[in-house]
Each structure stands twice: as structure tokens, then as C-alpha cells.
């Protein structure tokens, strides 16, 4: 007699469903070099396009001469703004409610801005053609410091909208002003600050950085004159949104546009926006009637595509003497570049910045973001950030340390005193976000015990006595991801729901299509695991498809860790619709009532008579046959469009230990311990991989990344020579841990996780570095914490004298 538990476990294992660290289905092609990235695509007759770009950050275009370029062997066409005007495509709407020049019309507003598009037989001729286009510029003074953007006599950057009273988000007070957005209770907060026993104020910069995925942006645009069909293979994290925007832009019916996201070499928020390169490639294809490939270079990628951050913040906290926070007041000046192009929900032009009360129970709060134009590339929301959450969390986690230092309270203790308590969930913050679930105390305690926090503080005291610099950084963050409920979250009016369509085949294998778009997150595996557990069919036989807008149901794509919270929920609910039908059919086949059936891993059993049952596989076949209950259609299929009731709030507790060489400023990460709670865990192996990757990107941001400019708006570090991408030699070793606090509103209790390590990691590194100097009254140090900058701190304090 086989042990029923063992048999049950075997059946469970065979599913390789939820919670299983199963190997990834997508790996098979990647390890063979058989992925299909956009630059791998070759279509018959395809031409290659390259962009002529402005050497100046701010200049008038006096003339453009195409003649020499057109004479270069292999060059087929050269497009400029004037060529796009007849088809109304010289300007395009952005995802931020602004307009952006596709090709510069009369002036350029940032260095490397697109000026002309050269189409040639191959990329070599295109490169020669680009060099041969002659553009005459008249240089203008550039605004590089956002604090100067609204000066009385500041040069006007956006002459095209100089008369506009608003650009999508409320009244403007200056031609270089984009919007002012605020949230919370200003009067109430100010009142608390006025009378609080303790207040702290700190200016905190979140410098401009760039997501820099290993694959740059690009597309192959193919307009078929005979059918009027436009197909664009594209590095896009949001193919459906791009299709809708392309239809609005081009006038081509959306049903005749097909956007295909194939394999994408990393996105990190860099591949959400619609770039001029895509638009000119589409136009060139319409004009020439052949496919046009455009692939940007790395320098173009770093210089012109969606950058991240550039928020000049001021953090203020009002507290009691015991460190209990009474009010929070955060403001930021946002440098958005020359066009407001970043993904913004219409109601949230500063993203989800108001999550800045973090993991803490803060009764009164107010925040404000003032966004301005500068002569830099457009962007701001990108880089594993869930819409400005990196900015918000960085501010609050730094301010917790600032407050702790001011009061001489331990940095873990001050957090404990202010945490939202487990019994307070669901907890509505002063800004109106309802945190779905969490247990911050438990997470922090687990981490502190794991690293033996007490011993670390003792060691730090000893080292300080010997004049050595050792820092301990803590970050206890709460993320807000999974955009989002459509009444609050939309892009250009389109709600941020997502979808899943499931078809079950007679032989028990499954095809599911979703509206999200993996760029390495493992969706082909994790969605299959969700569905496997719901349907009782092996994940190995569940095929997942995303990215082809002809086939996939509508969705807002993958960014801001929204796939699991939104599309994952849609997948579970679609599967449950199928299970409702399957149960009815099983009852019919077994000639019992539905109430007499119970579900057991991969089959329905008759209660009290376990040998009587139907496996899911049997039901799959039966559903395509004739013996069905009256009124039931054949097939086992379902579609779910899921409008989430709330966002989700993954959280974590991280500790970082650093040792700093006071003579060179070099900082060694001795230890990094990361505990994440993303609710229900679908595939622990994949989660761990996401944590490693997100922490490494956080390390890069905190310790070395910057997109610097000189005073004329010229880039100073826009290639991989300078831009800090850690290699295997620099990347620290990561220790991971977890707790599980499921989301009560999510069908499988899962919250999403991939951005948490980035959001929580950056302040952890920063806090560690500043903590190394805390005994010398250093309250804050701006990122990046390069050896150079850390040395400057050491030097200012005279620590590098022997």
C-alpha cells in the first residue's frame, strides 16, 4: 500500500507549481545563443537607420544640409523635422503629458538630441552618412542646475510651449516650470513642526543615474504598403501601450499595428518610453516601404534615453525626544530634462513619491515636488524604481538615520519605535496609501539576530577608538508596487489593469497569454507555476506567451514590479474561472453534486470515497467531448482582466557592514544581509536571483554611478569607461533571507519583489557609509560614495593624517 502522503507529495512535485525552485523554461534558448533580441531580427529588404545628434545642449538650428550624406554610397534617405511635419510626426506626445520633438525643429534642447535620421543599406554606410550630414548651430546658454531653471532671466528652454499655462499637471509659474504637485496636510504638518520638541532638516540629493540594461534600445519597423499593416519589433516593456500611442501618433488603426516584444536584454525601466528612434524608424518604413532597423549605441543610450532620479530633496522630520516621529515634510526639486517624458500616472506626475512615510506610523505628513526643465535628456522615472519610490524610500531611510544621530538613539531602535505595528495592518498612511500587510518588527529582529548586531556595534566602538572607519547601514523599507487600481492609476488615460487568457488543450497542456513583458524576470516559468497549482497541471506543459500585441490580451506591460501583483492575479483568477467550470464538469461526470467534491492537488475526489474522482487531465479531455452538463459549452478557456483593488507593499530589512580606508576613501562591503518579504513566494530560486541583481544595481548606484555634466550641458561620463557598472570582481557577496506576509487582497497573496532590493539597497549602502562617520557628527553624505568623494570627507575631517 503506497504511503498516501508520499504519493501526494510526488503528485505535488510533478506539478512544479507554486513555491517550487524549478529551473527556468526560457533558459534553453539563451544558453545556446538562440535568443531572439531585436538586433537579431533580419527581414528581407531591411535597411538600417542611424541618428544625427546635436553636439550642443542648447542651440538654434540654422541649417541642415543633406547633400553630402545623400552622396555617401549606400545612403538611401535622410529625414529631418521638415520631412515629418506633413505626417504630423515632428512632435509626439510623451507618457508624461508633454510633447517631445521626434527630430529637432528649429532648436535643440539637450546634448545628443535627435536632429536627423539617415537610412542606408547597412550600418556601416549609415554611420558614414551620419557623419556627412552638415548642421549649422547657433549655441545658446544652457541651464544645467535645476535650481537656476526658474530664475527671473533664465533662458527659455521650451519655446514650443512657452505660452502654455500647463503641461498636463496643473498651472505653471515660469516657462521652465513643468508642474508642482503636493500631497498631505500642509497646514497640519506645519503646525506640528512649529511646536515639536525636536526637528531635523537635511538636504539630500538623489543624483541622476541611468538603468543601463546590457542591451540598448532599438526596433525593426516594417510597414507593409499592400496591407497597410505596421509591425514593429521593439525593445519595449509595454508593447500594448506603445501600440495605442503609435496608433494615436500615426493615424493607423490600432488593429493594423502589431508591436512585438521578443527577447529583451534587460529593461529596468529604460524601455518603457517611446523614443524618437522608434518613431523615425516607423516613418522611414512608411516612406520607403521596406523594414527599417534602428539600434542605438551605448553612448546614445546613456545620453538620451530614460535616466533615473535627479531629485534634489529636502527631508524634515518632527519628533519627540524619544524619537517618536510626529510629522514628516519632504520636498523635492525634480530635474526632468528638456521634455517631461517619463511614465507618470495622470494623477501622479511625481509617481508614488508619497510612499515616503515608509514603514513608519507617522500621523501628519506633507510632500511637494516642483519639476523643472533643464537642458538635459528627458526621463526621471526609470531604474528598478516603481515610479519614484527609490526617491521616496531613500529620503525616509536617510532621515531615520539623521534623526537617530541627532538624538543619539540607536538606528535599529529608532525604527522599532516608529514602525507600523503588525496589528495595525491594513494601515492607511497619512498620504492615503493603505499598506496591505506587513510585520516590520519581525523582519528587523530576524536580520539583526542573523548578523549579531550587538557584536557589530561593539566592534565598531573598538575600531573607532583605534581611529578606524567602520559603518553599519540599516534599511527597513516598504515598497509600493503593482500599479494599479485604474481609478487612481492610468497612463494617458489608459488604466493600469492587466490580463491573462488561458486555453487548456484536450491532452492537458495549456497556453496562457498575458499583457506583461518579461525582460529577464522569468515569467515563462513563474506564471506557469501559478497556473500549474491552480489547475493541477504540470508547469512544464504550460506555455506562456507575452509581448506580441496581435496575440496577447491588453496589458500595461512590465515595470514597477507590477507583473505578479496584477497579471499574476489575472492568471490565478482566470485559472479559477476554469476550475469553476471543471468542477461542474467533474460533478456531472461523477454523477454527484458539486458540494460532494473536494480538490486534491491535481484531481477532484468524491468526499468520503477517495477512489472515486477525476484527474484534471481527464477533465481536459472530457471538456472537448459530448458528455457535458446541459447548457455548458465545450472547451476550458478563460480570460481575466484584473483591476487590482490596491497596490501591494513588499518590504524588507537590510543590513550592510562597510570598512573604509581613511587614506584612500576606498569602501569595502564586508557583509550585506537582505531579508525580503514579498508575500507568497512563487519560485524561491528566481526571487533570490532578483535580489542578487537588484542589490548589485543598488551597489552601483550608491557607490559609483552618476551622469555628470559640465556647465554647458556637455556629458562628462556617458560611456562605460566612466559609468560604473560593477564587474564580478567588484560585486559584493549577498546573503538573502525572507519572511512571508501574504497580501490579503491578492488572489495568491503575492506582492512582487524584483525592485525591492534596489529600492531598499541604495539607502542601506548610503546609511552604512555615513554611519562610518557618525561619531564625528557627519549627518549626511550625498551619493555616489566613490573613493574620491569619501576621501574628501576623510580629508575634511583630517582623518587621513598619519
Amino acid at each position, binding site marked *: 500500500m503506497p504511503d498516501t502522503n508520499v504519493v501526494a507529495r510526488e503528485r505535488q512535485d510533478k506539478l512544479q507549481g507554486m513555491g517550487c525552485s524549478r529551473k527556468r523554461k526560457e533558459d534553453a534558448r539563451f544558453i545556446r545563443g538562440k535568443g531572439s533580441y531585436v538586433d537579431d531580427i533580419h527581414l528581407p529588404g531591411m535597411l538600417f537607420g542611424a541618428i544625427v545628434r546635436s553636439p550642443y545642449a542648447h542651440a538654434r538650428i540654422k541649417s541642415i544640409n543633406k547633400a553630402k550624406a545623400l552622396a555617401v554610397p549606400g545612403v538611401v534617405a535622410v529625414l529631418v523635422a521638415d520631412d515629418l511635419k506633413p505626417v504630423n510626426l515632428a512632435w509626439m506626445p510623451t507618457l508624461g503629458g508633454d510633447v517631445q520633438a521626434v527630430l529637432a525643429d528649429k532648436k535643440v534642447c539637450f546634448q545628443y538630441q535627435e536632429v536627423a535620421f539617415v537610412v542606408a543599406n547597412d550600418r556601416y554606410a549609415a554611420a558614414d552618412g551620419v557623419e556627412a550630414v552638415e548642421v549649422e548651430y547657433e549655441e545658446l546658454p544652457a541651464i544645467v542646475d535645476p535650481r537656476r531653471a526658474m530664475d527671473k532671466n533664465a533662458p527659455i528652454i521650451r519655446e514650443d510651449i512657452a505660452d502654455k499655462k500647463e503641461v498636463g499637471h496643473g498651472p505653471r509659474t515660469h516657462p521652465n516650470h513643468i508642474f508642482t504637485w503636493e500631497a498631505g496636510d500642509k497646514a497640519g504638518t506645519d503646525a506640528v513642526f512649529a511646536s515639536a520638541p525636536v526637528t531635523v532638516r537635511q538636504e539630500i540629493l538623489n543624483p541622476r543615474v541611468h538603468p543601463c540594461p546590457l542591451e540598448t534600445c532599438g526596433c525593426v519597423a516594417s510597414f507593409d504598403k499592400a496591407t497597410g499593416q505596421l509591425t514593429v519589433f521593439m525593445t519595449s516593456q509595454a508593447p500594448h501601450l506603445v501600440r495605442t500611442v503609435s496608433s494615436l501618433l500615426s493615424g493607423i488603426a490600432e488593429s493594423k499595428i502589431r508591436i512585438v516584444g521578443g527577447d529583451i536584454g534587460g529593461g529596468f525601466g529604460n524601455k518603457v518610453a517611446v523614443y524618437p528612434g522608434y518613431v523615425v524608424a516607423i516613418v522611414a518604413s512608411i516612406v520607403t516601404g521596406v523594414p527599417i532597423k534602428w539600434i542605438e549605441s551605448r553612448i546614445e543610450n546613456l545620453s538620451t534615453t530614460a535616466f533615473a532620479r535627479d531629485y534634489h530633496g529636502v527631508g524634515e522630520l518632527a519628533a519627540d525626544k524619544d524619537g517618536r516621529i510626529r510629522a514628516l515634510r519632504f520636498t523635492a526639486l525634480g530635474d526632468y530634462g528638456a521634455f517631461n517624458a517619463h511614465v507618470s500616472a495622470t494623477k501622479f506626475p511625481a509617481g508614488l513619491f508619497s510612499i515616503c512615510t515608509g514603514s513608519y506610523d507617522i500621523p501628519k505628513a506633507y510632500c511637494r515636488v516642483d519639476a523643472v526643465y533643464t537642458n538635459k535628456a528627458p526621463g526621471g522615472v526609470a531604474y528598478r524604481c516603481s515610479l519614484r519610490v527609490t526617491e521616496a524610500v531613500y529620503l525616509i531611510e536617510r532621515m531615520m538615520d539623521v534623526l537617530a544621530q541627532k538624538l543619539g538613539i540607536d538606528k535599529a531602535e529608532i525604527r522599532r519605535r516608529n514602525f507600523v505595528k503588525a496589528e495595525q495592518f491594513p494601515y492607511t498612511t497619512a498620504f492615503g496609501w493603505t499598506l496591505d500587510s506587513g510585520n516590520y518588527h519581525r523582519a528587523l529582529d530576524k536580520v539583526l539576530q542573523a548578523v549579531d548586531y550587538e557584536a557589530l556595534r561593539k566592534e565598531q566602538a573598538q575600531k573607532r577608538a583605534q581611529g578606524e572607519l567602520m559603518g553599519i547601514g540599516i534599511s527597513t523599507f516598504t515598497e509600493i508596487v503593482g500599479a494599479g487600481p485604474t481609478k487612481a492609476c492610468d497612463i494617458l488615460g489608459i488604466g493600469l489593469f492587466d490580463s491573462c487568457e488561458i486555453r487548456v488543450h484536450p491532452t492537458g497542456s495549456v497556453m496562457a497569454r498575458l499583457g506583461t513583458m518579461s525582460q529577464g524576470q522569468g515569467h515563462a516559468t513563474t506564471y506557469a507555476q501559478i497556473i500549474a497549482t491552480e489547475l493541477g497541471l504540470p508547469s512544464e506543459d504550460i506555455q506562456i506567451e507575452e509581448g506580441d500585441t496581435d496575440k496577447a490580451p491588453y496589458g500595461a506591460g512590465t515595470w514597477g514590479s507590477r507583473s505578479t501583483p496584477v497579471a499574476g492575479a489575472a492568471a490565478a483568477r482566470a485559472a479559477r474561472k476554469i476550475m469553476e467550470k471543471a468542477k461542474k464538469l467533474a460533478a456531472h461526470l461523477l454523477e454527484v453534486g458539486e458540494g460532494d467534491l473536494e480538490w486534491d492537488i491535481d484531481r477532484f475526489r468524491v468526499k468520503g470515497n477517495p477512489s472515486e474522482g477525476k484527474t484534471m487531465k481527464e477533465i481536459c479531455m472530457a471538456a472537448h467531448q459530448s458528455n457535458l452538463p446541459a447548457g455548458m459549452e465545450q472547451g476550458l478557456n478563460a480570460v481575466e482582466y484584473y483591476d487590482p483593488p490596491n497596490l501591494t507593499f513588499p518590504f524588507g530589512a537590510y543590513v550592510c557592514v562597510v570598512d573604509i580606508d581613511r587614506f584612500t576613501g576606498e569602501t569595502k562591503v564586508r557583509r550585506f544581509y537582505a531579508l525580503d518579504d514579498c508575500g507568497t513566494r512563487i519560485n524561491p530560486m528566481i526571487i533570490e536571483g532578483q535580489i542578487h541583481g537588484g542589490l548589485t544595481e543598488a551597489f552601483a548606484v550608491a557607490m559609483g554611478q552618476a551622469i555628470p555634466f559640465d556647465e554647458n550641458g556637455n556629458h562628462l561620463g556617458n560611456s562605460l569607461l566612466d559609468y560604473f557598472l560593477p564587474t564580478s570582481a567588484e560585486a559584493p557577496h549577498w546573503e538573502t533571507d525572507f519572511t512571508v506576509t501574504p497580501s490579503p487582497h491578492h488572489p495568491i497573496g503575492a506582492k512582487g519583489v524584483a525592485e525591492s532590493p534596489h529600492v531598499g539597497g541604495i539607502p542601506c549602502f548610503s546609511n552604512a557609509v555615513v554611519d562610518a562617520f557618525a561619531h564625528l557628527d557627519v549627518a549626511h553624505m550625498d551619493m555616489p560614495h566613490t573613493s574620491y568623494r569619501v576621501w574628501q570627507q576623510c580629508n575634511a575631517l583630517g582623518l587621513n593624517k*598619519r
Partner: protein
Amino acid sequence: MIPRPFEYHAPASLPDALSLLHRYGEEAKLLAGGHSLLPMMKLRFASPGHLIDLGKIGELKGIRQVGGEIHIGAMTTENELVWSKLLAEKVPLLVEGARLISDPQVRYKGTLGGDIAHGDPGNDHPALMLALDASFVLRSASGERVVPADGFFQGLYSTRMEANEVLTRIQIPVPSAGTGWCYAKLKRKTGDFATAAAACLLRTKGGRVEFARLALTNVAATPVKVRAAEQYLQGRPLDDGAIAEVARLAMSVCEPTEDQRGDVTYKTAMAGEMTQRALRTAASRAQ
């Protein structure tokens, strides 16, 4: 990403290479490992009309001991330096230096001769060559001359090598037994040029310095031989005071340029720090 068009030549012998050089003059550039030149050409910062690839010339390879010297063919790659047992035993400074250059793939192609001849102050071998009292064999159609490393580097991308010459061989006197060595390089990340680096050779006897060489990387338009330090150390015990003074002397001859690695103050201070590191480590390795 795409260079401008050019003609490519792959001579099989040194005389053929020299005659191509003579024929194309200013329009020609020698191609060694290509990992300095080709990246410049891909960004169109350089566009020679003719590339003369030295890769097929056998006599430009090889690491061997000839009497009291090590002779290294100019086309010897960094990777070959790293794995050379002869160098590990006789000139470990060079092995340590090569290991700190760039990344593994670049080291399979980058050459000792190319690194020296390019005249880029960011390259590491020039300072190593100064510390090793190396000399360079330069061949032209009219003959051969041997030029010491000291004085070879004249300025930014400028050396004493003539346009019609090929660097064929590097000659290094084998440091005496018991000589300590160190190349201390501070860099932002793998693959970056030095923020500052110091190459040091040291020999002590009876607690006093008998022989010292010190040269710096990337803190001036050329590598810097810190003569004053070499002279100061002669006959002195290597205590903290001496090390501090040597660092001060090193810093006093720095003229670094400000860039993303740091300002003049930082780079100068780092030249001092790398000097200290190099001295202490070399001393610990001296026997």
C-alpha cells in the same frame, strides 16, 4: 561603433612592415593588440588610412633570458606576461603590473609594446619600465637603436619613437636576488585606468635601502620617475618617517589632470598613498 574606411596590411616579416611604414608614412598606424587603437577608430577619434598589423611577425614574440637581461618581444601579450614562469621568477613586478591592466579578454590581445609605444599616460607599463630601468629596441629601415625607458616618454601620445620605427623588443636587466617589488594601483573599477599608481623596486642591506626605484602612472602627461625619492632613500633605513618623506617627494612631482576619477588634490594625495603602499609592500617582499 564603426571606423572610417582604411586599408589593411599584414606583413609576414619586419622588413616588410618597415617598408610599408616607409611607403605610407603619416597615413599609417601600426596595429599591435588593437585594444587602444581600434576603440579610438570606432569612435572616429583616429582614422589612419592604413593599418599595418604586426600580428604575423614571429620575431616580435617571445620572453627569454639573455645573459643578465630578460628580452621580451614587443608583441608579447599581457596574458603571456601574466602566465610567464620566467617572469614570475625573475621580474615579478611585471607580472603584478600586467595582472592589474584592464580585463582578461583585453589582456589576451593587448601587448607590452603597444602599451609602451602608445604614449598614453594612463597606461601602466611605462612606469613599470622606468622602475625596471628597461630599454627599448627600435628598428627602422636604416637600422636599430636601443633607447632607455628613462627619457623615452615625452608627452601626451608622444615618445621618442620616430614615425618610421617599430618597437621590436623590450630589454630588462634582471633585478638582483632579494629585490622587493610592488605595483600599487588605485582604480575605480576593473578596466579603468589608474587614478594613481606607483611602481617600486627596493633592495635593503643591513636595514638600509641599497637600491630604490619609484615611478608613477597617470599623474602627469608622461609616467614620472621620482628621482628625488630614489636618491633620498639611498642608504636610509625605511622607517615611517622615510616613507612619509618619499610620499611627499612623489606628490611634489605630480601634475595630474582633473577628471571623473578625481580632482588634482585627490589624485596627488593618491599618488602619495600608492607610493606608501608600494614601498611598504616592496619592503615586505625584499629579502
